[in-house]
């Protein structure tokens, strides 16, 4: 393999990886607060993209994205309040099944609101054919946007969870809900907040990736499976780990194409997920002790 080809595969892998990572981060926020996996995360990504594509007919791109993120956050809050907030100490399994149901409902509603066409936001810089040359290899500028937004999110989130009292309260709820309540933390508000946050992050992800992947009402489950794989691979709850695992999976997938046919690309992701679940269920970067304390 020549250096040039190696770099091309590497950059393709980074493209895939950053898409996976940006979805995986959304999983982690809700997991950090509630201990559950929100399987409607892929739908937040879809909603963000769809709303922005609709709004761009009326307002400039940055405002459309901003409004799409805000609107999706409101939708996230409403969903949590209507379907989850009033449940009396729901079990993890019950909440997970609720999120699966929600993802189906959101998808069907989106089908009726936006129909089945494929849409996309314009490229933030340049157009469909413009590319940036790095080390003699071409890469779409939009990929750099995805990588950039992804890194910003991770840094901002880890600062938020480590250094703000709100962030610490959210983490306390995940660690031990009862103890958190005894300390005077309003656990229900924290759960709502986590849905709002992850809806916002999902929507932002949906906007930056829309020019690359296109946005369609049923894009959610495919993204959610990859994002979930990456979140598990890195170790649930850790955003840095999600990014590292996302890039790792993306790069493995990209290089796999040089040896096996493209048609097996998805099979590789699922195989890795299974192997990780068998041998390191707490993820590559997670600690087994911390995972042992969690319900799920």
């Amino acid at each position: 393999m020549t250096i040039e080809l190696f770099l091309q595969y590497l950059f393709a892998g980074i493209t895939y990886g950053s898409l996976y990572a940006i979805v995986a981060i959304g999983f982690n926020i809700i997991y950090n607060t509630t201990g559950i996996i929100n399987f409607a995360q892929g739908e937040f990504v879809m909603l963000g993209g769809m709303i922005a594509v609709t709004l761009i007919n009326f307002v400039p791109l940055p405002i459309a994205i901003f409004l799409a993120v805000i609107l999706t956050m409101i939708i996230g809050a409403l969903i949590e309040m209507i379907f989850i907030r009033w449940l009396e100490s729901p079990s993890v399994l019950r909440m997970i099944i609720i999120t699966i149901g929600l993802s189906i409902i959101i998808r069907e509603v989106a089908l009726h609101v936006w129909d089945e066409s494929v849409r996309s936001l314009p490229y933030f810089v340049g157009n469909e054919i413009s590319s940036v040359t790095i080390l003699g290899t071409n890469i779409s500028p939009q990929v750099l946007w995805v990588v950039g937004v992804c890194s910003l999110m991770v840094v901002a989130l880890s600062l938020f969870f480590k250094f703000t009292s709100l962030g610490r309260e959210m983490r306390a709820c995940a660690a031990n809900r009862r103890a958190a309540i005894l300390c005077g933390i309003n656990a229900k508000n924290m759960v709502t907040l986590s849905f709002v946050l992850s809806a916002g992050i999902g929507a932002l992800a949906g906007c930056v990736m829309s020019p690359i992947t296109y946005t369609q009402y049923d894009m959610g489950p495919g993204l959610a499976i990859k994002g979930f794989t990456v979140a598990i691979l890195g170790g649930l709850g850790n955003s840095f780990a999600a990014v590292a695992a996302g890039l790792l999976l993306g790069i493995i997938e990209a290089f796999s194409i040089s040896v096996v046919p493209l048609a097996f690309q998805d099979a590789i992701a699922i195989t890795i997920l299974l192997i990780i679940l068998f041998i390191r269920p707490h993820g590559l970067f997670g600690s087994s002790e911390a995972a042992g304390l969690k319900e799920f």
Partner: protein
Amino acid sequence: MRGPEIHDRQQQPVNKEEREVAKRFITSTLAVVVALAAMITLLISSTAAEAHDIKVGAIIAETGPAAFLGKPEAKTLQMLTDQINAAGGINGDKIELILKDSGGKKENAVSFAKQLIEEDKVFAILGPSRSGSTMAIKNIMEESKTILISCASTKKIVDPVAKHVFKTPQNDSLAVRMIFMEMQKKGISKIAVVVGGTGFGKMGNMFLNELAPEYGITVLENETYSPKATDLSAVVAKLMANKEIQAVVNWSIVPAQVILAKNMRQAGWDVPLFLSHGFGNIKYVQTGGAALEGVLFPAGRLLIADSLPADHPQKEVLVTYKNDYESKFNEPVSTFGGHAYDALMILVNAIKAVGGKQDTAMVVDAIENMTFVGTGGVFKFSPEDHSGLKIDAFEMMTVKDGKFAKAM
């Protein structure tokens, strides 16, 4: 002795009550009978009125991955049915269109086909939109002796010929030949074939590999992408590494075909890109933007209806359909809607030809002897040819300034 006495004493009121009940019973029975009679007469008269209405089923992928095909097909069928009925129907009989959305899934196509045949007792079925779905119901149609006019492209639908199965899109094998002929003209002999992972893609892949030697063309690389692919830059890197490749054929009906075009151009790889006739929807061009400029693909003449010379045999039908569709739905016409137009019109013309009789054998016979000027080309059916189109139905097209144009 006591028993009858008691009985006697009680008999009076019972009798009275019985009479009351009987009276009520009679009146209510009468009412029911009258109502029933009314309903039956209504039913008879309505069935009498509907007896000749022509029930036509349609299995269309209005949603799902092939929605770019299915949506214009469904709209076209609806529009055309309304037009025909408003103009008095076929010899006075109205068409009753029963439209089913398969979601692009084979299983749904199979169950809808059975439902339409067994429960709705339709005279004929139009669609399905996709090759895989059509192949899945080919035998069902043949066994139940119900006419199917498919809107899917693969040659396998009519080869081997099934007595009751027809199709309107141009054969995919003809599209393959069209592409190879263009390559010969350009002096291209070494190519890569990349197809979407659908029935259409698989069949196309088969014909591309089968017919390539006939034209002295070698397929150097062969890949299949997921219909849900989000980015294909890795496979582009792999193909690009093979410096011998002179052109790429991207054979697909799913939106991901645009992603491949985009990734190729982003990587700065500018070999000629050939697409299939599964690209004939301007919405694909809109999503792909600049990346699709200059791609080559074979398609029917509907896309360039306006620029055809006035004496072209298809000119009138193409322009009429295009204007009707575009003024009604306010969106550009696509070749897929045209396939549905041809399917319904072939059925309608055949029923007209046999004097409006809903006789399957006669209508099949009429189609087999028909020459029909449609949107896809000039159809000449025969008992051996249930597709009716030759390679001249295609024109090599390109994308210029975001619009379809005839390739130079």
